């Protein structure tokens, strides 16, 4: 062997030999097998007891679109509440103030420690505990009127989400070097300003992927609120098939919408991730986003 490699003539000849690409036999075999299975599945669905015309027809039915609207509104509002309370409780949990820290720990412990379904039922049945709510001596309302399915679902989903998001946000903040905070304080920022201007924008890069995951999961969790009469898309589909008996067709209608919404959200997540990767990846200077500032002659790239 050594004699072969060390012979300059053989080495030069070997170096000149033409190169052949790797054949990737495994990939072709796997693709063939999967295509075969896929064909069987498609055939099964085509021959199965599914009335595809009905699926197409109900896709844009009024009650389904209304249900979709309720699902989307609840996803957005519950996520806003979840992210808002998540950031708040993450910051509280990292505060030097032991009272704030204790409150945040209790909140996270409590809302992560009980099932979401149970929390929804508790909010909805709050009137059993407090017949009226309000500020003593200022105003009060009957709880049954305030705690509609909408409000109960929003509080149930949003506050539960907040407990999880708080930990995600805290992880993001911890991932940023403390030198960033020190540099911010050295130019005279308060701790809170440093968090808002310097730490959180950088933490977003770490926070967005798991929160994107949670948004996707929230789209589907809203269906759980049908137990407290929230009229989301799955509940609308159920209402229709109780009347016409087309169970699978209506469930497929809901599936199509869920998949469509989740696909759009995933695309949105990609855009956001790119935006918050600023300064992390080396890039072509030509592609540099221009700072929105007046140009000065002789300056700039």
């Amino acid at each position, binding site marked *: 062997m050594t004699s072969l490699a060390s012979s300059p003539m053989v080495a030069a000849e070997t170096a000149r030999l033409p190169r052949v690409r790797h054949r990737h036999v495994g990939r072709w075999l796997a693709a063939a097998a999967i295509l075969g299975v896929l064909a069987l599945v498609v055939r099964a669905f085509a021959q199965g007891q599914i009335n595809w015309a009905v699926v197409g027809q109900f896709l844009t039915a009024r009650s389904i679109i209304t249900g979709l609207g309720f699902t989307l509104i609840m996803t957005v509002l519950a996520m806003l509440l979840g992210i808002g309370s998540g950031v708040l409780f993450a910051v509280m949990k990292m505060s030097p103030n032991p009272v704030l820290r204790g409150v945040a720990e209790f909140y996270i412990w409590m809302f992560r420690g009980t099932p979401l379904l149970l929390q929804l039922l508790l909010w909805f049945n709050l009137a059993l505990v407090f017949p009226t709510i309000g500020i003593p001596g200022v105003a009060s309302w009957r709880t049954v009127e305030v705690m509609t399915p909408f409000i109960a679902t929003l509080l149930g989903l949003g506050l539960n989400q907040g407990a999880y998001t708080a930990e995600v946000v805290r992880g993001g903040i911890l991932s940023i*070097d403390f*030198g*960033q905070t*020190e*540099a*911010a*304080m*050295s*130019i*005279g*920022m*308060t*701790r*809170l*300003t440093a968090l808002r*201007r*310097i730490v959180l*924008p*950088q933490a977003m890069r770490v926070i967005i992927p798991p929160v994107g995951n949670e948004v996707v999961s929230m789209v589907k969790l809203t269906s759980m609120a049908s137990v407290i009469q929230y009229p989301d898309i799955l509940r609308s589909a159920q209402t229709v098939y109780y009347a016409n008996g087309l169970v699978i067709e209506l469930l497929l209608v809901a599936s199509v919408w869920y998949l469509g919404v989740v696909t759009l959200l995933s695309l949105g997540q990609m855009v956001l991730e790119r935006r*918050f990767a*600023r*300064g*992390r*990846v*080396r*890039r072509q*200077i030509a592609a*540099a986003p*221009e*700072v929105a*500032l*007046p140009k*000065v002659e*002789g*300056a*700039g*790239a």
Partner: protein
Amino acid sequence: MSAVLSPMVRMAAVDKRYGDYPALRNIELEVRAGEVLCIIGPSGSGKSTLLRCINQLESIDAGAIWVDGDLIGHRVVGQTLHPLGDAQVAAQRRKIGMVFQRFNLFAHMTVLQNVIEGPVTVQRRPREEATRKARELLGRVGLADRQNHYPSELSGGQQQRVAIARALAMQPQLLLFDEPTSALDPELVGEVLAVMRDLAASGMTMVVVTHELGFAREVADRVVFMDAGAVVEQGPAAAVLTAPQHQRTRDFISAVIK
């Protein structure tokens, strides 16, 4: 006015402990306005801690520090010292610029955004004015053509020069340098020292923790040698560096030069 009479920095009987470990012991130190003071000493001698105490990145356990006549971190109420709140501490730091060993540029901001962040967000100055000033400063540190780059696209020496411009943008009375060249490749040290030399010549008050004895000899008005949390000796740069009085100072200097 008062700056002429009182020193820019005065430290009196300052003690600092990490648990049982004494980081600073009975520090007595003055920095006059316009002076360049270099602090040298072995690692773990408390040089960086001393510097960080001046702008309150570390708290002290005993003693008192004044910057430009203001008592740092506390106010006197009758016969007791009361700690200041976060906002007041932040306001005190605005007079003091700091340059870190690891640069600590804001990674999500371009060079220009790094430099105008303090003036715009903290001092609430108009963005156009801050930008004009920032471009001037970047020109002064030789980086006018790098304003739209992100820190990750710059060399260590360039990043440190941006960090100096960022500190200068706040128009500080005092600049603190915490081993500004220790994280740099040897061939990049010179460009940062050149900027610092230029600053010193312009009359800026500077406290520099450094291992660059050549820089200290050339630029410093006075040199402080620290060991084990205490100031062992201080005096004119030439005196301390070429004719040290204490054996520990002599040992340190010969170890560094060799």
